[in-house]
């Protein structure tokens, strides 16, 4: 996560020129710079066409340069082209033939990529220094969460332009900023994860996170529910039964988080998982796999059962998660899970076969993989 670099950035900047993470509302002059793009018409409707594709954002270990890579699942090949994206960019499934890239702190933009031509068709700013986190599209409007802002940004998509800001600061923690991150769309409703970290103290988790529900037809907040865990850090994961889960990291090094079901509380704790819950995916309605940072600073792939609340360690990597297995992605239509392995010497997208409980293949994508998304384009 980009906000995780704040401490490091401060360290470097204190003597060399300083840095700042500003939180708050966009000033009028900054607001005028939001969602500006050339006047082009994009068709965000329809279904993606083309073969199944994994889109992978990659970034070097110093988070200085990133590139988007394209893996054709049907052909099993990696496109040799690199599309420039920011360091630690997030890949989000797009709309129609387009894919959205969320460029976070330092770039703070949404990059729209044509999946077929593998080219950027447009990019627009969401506010310098606001640290974009996620994007969701509804009725030709893009809802964008920003970690260092008090408002959800709403941009029109066709044509691209500023629509409105939706203030969510009433649900912030004491620093006045709710630290919005992941979103999930369900019909006309949007779930927004509020991490509620203390931005005045190294983004430590001092209170529990929350989930805000936004009605996208009226652009109004319908309610906010507190989670049981602190520092919720993963995307929402839903199963076929309509149950939605999110995982909380809590305080690093303390087993105070875990996977919880919205409305039902903690289901699998970090103690049961065996360490810090880095990420998780669901592989069917009741089961899933999680990435866990162990007390030895190793990274484990752990399977869990939501109904029996049992866990089992599947595989372990001796590298810390930030230099090894860092993110999971359940590949749709398969029993496979893609793992972004950022190991120093043999980084790759590793595919874990949950049925056969083994690594099926490793796909090298040049730079270490960071975020994985699914789309078309092959």
């Amino acid at each position, binding site marked *: *996560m980009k906000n*995780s*670099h*704040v*401490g*490091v950035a*401060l*360290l*470097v*900047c*204190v*003597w*060399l*020129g*300083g*840095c*700042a*993470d*500003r*939180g*708050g509302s966009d000033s009028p002059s900054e607001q005028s710079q939001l969602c*500006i*793009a*050339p006047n082009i018409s994009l068709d965000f409707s329809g279904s993606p066409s083309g073969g199944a594709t994994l889109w992978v954002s990659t970034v*070097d*270990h*110093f*988070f*200085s*340069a990133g590139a988007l890579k394209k893996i054709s699942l049907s052909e099993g090949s990696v496109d040799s082209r*690199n599309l420039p994206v920011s360091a630690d960019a997030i890949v989000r499934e797009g709309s129609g033939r387009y894919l959205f890239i969320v*460029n976070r702190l*330092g*770039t*703070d*933009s949404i990059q729209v990529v044509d999946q077929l031509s593998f*080219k*950027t068709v*447009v*990019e*627009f*700013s969401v506010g*310098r220094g606001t640290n974009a986190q996620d994007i969701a599209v509804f009725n030709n409007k893009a809802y964008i969460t920003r970690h260092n802002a008090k408002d959800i940004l709403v941009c029109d998509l066709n044509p691209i332009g500023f629509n409105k800001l939706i203030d969510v600061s009433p649900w912030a923690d004491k*620093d006045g*900023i709710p630290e919005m991150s992941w979103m999930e769309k369900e019909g006309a409703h949007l779930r927004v994860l509020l991490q509620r970290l*203390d*931005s*005045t*103290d*190294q*983004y430590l988790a001092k209170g529990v996170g929350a989930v805000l529900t936004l009605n996208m037809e009226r652009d109004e907040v319908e309610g906010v529910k507190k989670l049981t865990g602190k520092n919720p850090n993963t995307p929402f994961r839903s199963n076929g039964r309509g149950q939605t889960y999110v995982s909380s990291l809590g305080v*690093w090094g303390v087993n105070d988080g875990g996977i919880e079901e919205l409305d039902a509380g903690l289901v699998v704790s970090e103690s049961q998982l065996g360490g810090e819950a880095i990420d998780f995916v669901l592989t069917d309605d009741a089961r899933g796999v999680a990435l866990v940072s162990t007390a030895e*600073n190793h990274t484990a792939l752990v399977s869990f059962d939501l109904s029996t609340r049992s866990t089992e360690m599947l595989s372990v990597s001796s590298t*810390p998660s*930030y230099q090894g297995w860092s993110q999971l992605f359940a590949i749709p239509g398969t029993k496979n899970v893609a793992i972004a392995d950022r190991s*120093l*010497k043999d*980084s790759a997208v590793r595919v874990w076969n949950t049925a056969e409980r083994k690594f099926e293949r490793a796909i090298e994508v*040049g*730079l270490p993989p960071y975020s994985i998304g699914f789309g078309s384009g092959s």
Partner: protein
Amino acid sequence: MRTYLLSCLAVSLTLSTSIICETTSASLPAIKVLGKKKSSHESSSLHVESFPVESFTVAQSLESSPAILVRQSGGAGSVPQFLVRGQDPSQTRFFFEGIPLKTSQYGVTHLELLSANHFSRVEVAPGQISTTLGEDGLGGAIHFRLPETFSRPAVTMRTGAFGYLEAYARAALPNRHPIQFAAEYSQAFEDFLYFDNNGTLFNSADDRIRRREDNLFRRISFLPHARFNLSPSSTCDLFSLNVLREQGLPGPVSAPTSGVWRGFTQLNSAIYRGQIKTIPVHAQVYSVWSQDGLRGIPQGSRSIDYDSHSLTLGVRSTQTWLQETNGTFRTTIGGQWERYQMESSSSVSPLFDNERFQLPMGADVEWGSGRLRGNVGIQGHLNKSRARTQASVRQDFFLSPRASVVYTFSASTRIRLAGGYFYRAPSMMELYGRPDGLSANPLLQEERAWKVEGGWDGEWRAPFLFHTWKLSYTAASAWGKNLISYLQNAQASAVAVNIGRANILSQEILVEGKDAHGFSLAAGWSWLHAINESEIDYQKGKELPGRPRQRLRVAARYEKNKWALGYTWTLTGATYGDVANLKRIGAVGDHAIQLSWNGGKWGEWTLEGRNLADATTAAAAYKNSEVESVENISGVSGYPVPGRRIYLSWKVEI
């Protein structure tokens, strides 16, 4: 002032009690003059005797050397970074008249203390640090030297772009024991315009020119310097550089200003040059005391203040045991203790409280016969570091052998060859970390590098164009291993690890020419092949970022009667901005011009224009069809250098 002098004298007492000031000294080495070096100790030095264009800043004084790449963002008050032969700035050691300017806490150098008015010459040793300086480092040494002789009283004023104002005055009391006082005030507001692409490389619709504000810089410095001529051949120098400064911290491009840095630093030193019995001795005792405050550093929605204090006490002595025509033998021993503390307003306990004791020692033998002279030396370093807050102690011992040889063909032509195995001890921050974002790594090892270089220097008279020509060529190579990089190891922290390896091959050519009619020309060209040899696949074989392959600097000056016109063109080649070589940064050209008029009793007036083609605007105007590409020279905060700058200087000697 009297109190001040007394305190300086008090510092010297420690020295004078142990040193008998008697006879002939081993004087400071002469200024490095191209093609005239006598000693193989200095065989890696490369410096221009008189670059045609006058230097007004520290950066200008160094950019004449082709071995040094100057990276500067911001305006006149900003602190540049210097890369010597492509090595990281943290690997080069800077000295102010023998006082190390490195901080063992951060491993960086506080060059903002220095003003070009306070030194008369710079010795550049890109290959190695002399054993007599007793410091570690892979990237050579840059030594700012005080004047050897006390100059006449003078007043200098300089003003120019970005609210730059500088006033300098010096006065001397000439007697048997001369004393000189120098004081300077400088300021710059530097609210410069820069091109902002709004972070969107693929969208030029939201580009704009923005103003970077809150870049205030103010500095007051005071430098008394006394010389006690104890005998015809022995001297004791006392000096004290006192610097009070205030500086805005501009923050990165995407964020607002990061507060203000205010600090006071005092460097005191006493230097003895003479003999103890029959042994020539060059001894120095020094102290560096610094008190800094960072105010209003934004963190989230609030700001935090930081306070830091540091004290360094050091002593170093070089003894020349044998000084014959065919050889010399000298040893150096010293000791240095440093302590650094920092507190923040957001933390009850100190962020760190670290100390380091260093015991440098060195020896070298120089011998010569006829045209050939050689030198073999070794430096040892005992380091003992302690993190008081973590009750952690670590002790290291490093050794660095080195050798050089010079063969003189004639009075004006020579070849030189030098090599050695060098080290850089990890900074205490790298070892012990910081609670706000850096983990400790007590297993961290020192950085190491094998370095070799060879070169040829020549000077001759020619019947055409210029009556005097000088030419120097140097090829150098460095193989670095265990290089320290920072890797993220948890959600909010990184750790320093020894994963880096690099091979750097460089070539430098320096040409100087002068004619009898007031025309002079100098050109420096450097070629750099800095390759990352890290074991990380996507880095191996790639170019190290920020190291342009080619750099060319041409300067010309024409003098006639009271007038002088100087012109400098610097071309910095393309480079990469990241370790994976995905971000290419284009080449940048820079033009500067100086027009001077010496009005005698009215003083010397210089009008100077820098970056006349406005590389910033030119870069902003360049966009290719697919991705906006802004070519700029940017520093740590990502800002390009400001556009055109004009300065007017006035200097009068009384």
